[in-house]
């Protein structure tokens, strides 16, 4: 297990505060946060490249806080690949194995196997400068993976790639994780990438970890407005909580109790987090699955390539955003246009609240 215990780092303009995280063996942890929050600094600190001002790093049960990078056996892959331009692909991948003074034949075999696994076997004698971004990133992955790292640290590995290559390499990362069983710590600012890959998600902003957990749980139970915004939750309604009564711009909401939630004051200002997917127009019968039902006016409608974005407004001025797939849109009981009033329901399943 890789464990960070109250790690603090000061590096130029970046300050990381009191970061605690643990990465279970075999996990795929994604650290999501906007650019400029110190994600790379954190990753490099884990790799041993910056000395923390406080806290401890544990690797495999040993206190590794003061270990130099070369003793940690953590692989690093950067956004811009950082391949050695003066070496061939084969020499790049073999770099670490050669430092370990492994036998030549052994190195050759390992490199060829890994190159085969990542489908770059035909590039071994080329120099990295002439390869495409996707090919370079595979080489960088191979170079780290041949050393069987305890944890593979990925720093925005897909961000420099074009769209289609990014999609392909994203699936490739999943395959690497599944087939090699390597533990991965991946940082990114890309939301779909995070949800596609993570089995554990941590959110970071301004040098601190805001929340972590299973992606599904983080999405359903955002702890703060910043988290909800990072997760791209479409609707955040301002409201109040008075004991068991929840009030918002839409009126009273029927919110289920969350046993795990930390106790707050009896009466407080809150936000309701309402993901777009739990806003239904023409909701089904019965009140039970719904937090709220009412009529709203369709204020705007945008046709995107696979879905339709809807902006609904309540007489109080409260807005709800949602989207329908093209198929759902076609199956609506009546055809809708901007200006009409439609029945709307909010599913209990996705709604959550947190203090303002």
């Amino acid at each position, binding site marked *: 297990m890789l464990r960070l215990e109250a790690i603090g780092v000061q590096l130029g303009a970046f300050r990381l505060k009191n970061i605690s995280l643990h990465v279970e063996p075999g996990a795929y942890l994604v650290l999501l946060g906007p650019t400029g929050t110190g994600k790379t600094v954190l990753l*490099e600190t884990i*790799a*041993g*490249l910056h000395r923390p001002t406080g806290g401890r790093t544990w690797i495999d049960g040993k206190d590794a806080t003061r270990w*130099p*990078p*070369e003793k*940690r*056996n*953590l*692989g*690093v892959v*950067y956004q*811009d690949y*950082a391949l*050695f*331009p*003066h070496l061939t692909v084969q020499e790049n991948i073999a*770099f*670490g194995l050669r*430092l*370990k003074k492994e036998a030549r034949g052994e190195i050759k075999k390992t490199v060829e196997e890994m190159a085969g696994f990542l489908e770059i076997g035909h590039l071994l004698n080329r*120099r990295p*400068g*002439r390869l495409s971004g996707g090919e370079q990133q595979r080489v960088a992955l191979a*170079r*780290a993976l041949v*050393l069987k790292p305890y944890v593979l*640290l990925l720093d925005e590995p897909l961000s420099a790639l074009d769209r289609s290559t990014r999609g392909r390499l994203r699936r490739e990362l999943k395959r690497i994780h599944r087939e090699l069983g390597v533990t991965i710590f991946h940082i990114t600012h890309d939301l779909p990438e995070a949800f596609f890959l993570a089995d554990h998600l941590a959110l970071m902003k301004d040098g601190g970890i805001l929340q972590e957990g299973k992606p599904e749980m983080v999405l359903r139970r955002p702890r703060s407005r910043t988290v909800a915004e990072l997760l791209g939750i479409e609707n955040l309604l301002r409201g109040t909580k008075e004991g068991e009564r929840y009030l918002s711009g839409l009126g009273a909401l029927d919110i289920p109790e969350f046993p795990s939630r930390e106790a707050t004051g009896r009466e407080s200002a809150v936000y309701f987090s309402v993901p777009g997917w739990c806003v239904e127009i023409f909701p089904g019968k019965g009140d039970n699955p719904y937090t709220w039902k009412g009529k709203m006016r369709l204020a705007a409608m945008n046709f995107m390539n696979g879905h339709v974005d809807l902006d609904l407004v309540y007489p109080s001025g409260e807005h709800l955003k949602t989207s329908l797939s093209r198929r759902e849109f076609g199956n609506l009981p009546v055809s809708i246009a901007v200006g009409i009033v439609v029945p709307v329901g909010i599913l209990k399943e996705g709604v959550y609240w947190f203090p303002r």
Partner: protein
Amino acid sequence: MRNFKAVIWCLSTIVILMIVIPLARMMMAADPAILRATISEPEVYSSILLTLRSALWATLVCAVFGIPLAYILARWKFPGKSFVQGLIDLPIMIPHTAAGIALLMVYGRRFFLGRAFEKLGIGFVGTEAGISLAMAFVSLPFLVNAARDGFISVDPRLERVARTLGATPWRSFFKVSLPLTWRPILSGAIMMWARGISEFGAVIILAYHPMTAPILIWERFQSYGLKYATPVAVVLILICLIIFSLLRWLATRPREA
């Protein structure tokens, strides 16, 4: 477009002519008979060799100390860095006779450092070591600055990756940083060597004898006049032209892809 090219070529040609005309004039003026005699003269021959050799020594020794300094300047921040940077450029600016006097005051017998070296059997006044020292002092900036710029152009992430792949800081330096910088370093070393060969002011003060080529040219000019100074100069220039064209070609050859 055509205008642009024409102007650029014209301006460049003027620069080249500025260098070529005086040199060509001198070579043409050299009496062929005296030139032939000069080439076979042991004093000229050994003086040119001495110049090339002591400048080369200066460069090699300074490379050992100057490359680490260049690396520090490229990679690390520390208080007073701009001041250190300024210090390194200083030898280019100060009059080289002044540099020679300063060196004489430190490495001469009247200062403890000079006496200490003398006890170790290394004298700097009137010796080949002194020549190298004077050359090193005035030409070091060329090597350090070139190497520093070279290191700056290497992405520090390459060194970091090397570390995570198991390289000690030493290994990472010798396997990544240095191989990626050898070209600018070589280019800087060539410049330093060249600058050392041409040095007159600092050398003449620290070591009039043994006589390097620039001093020999000066001495012949003083004692026998222009006619006998020119052939030595011509020989030195021709040798330098051949060596440095070759080295430049070596240092700028495109890297194989």
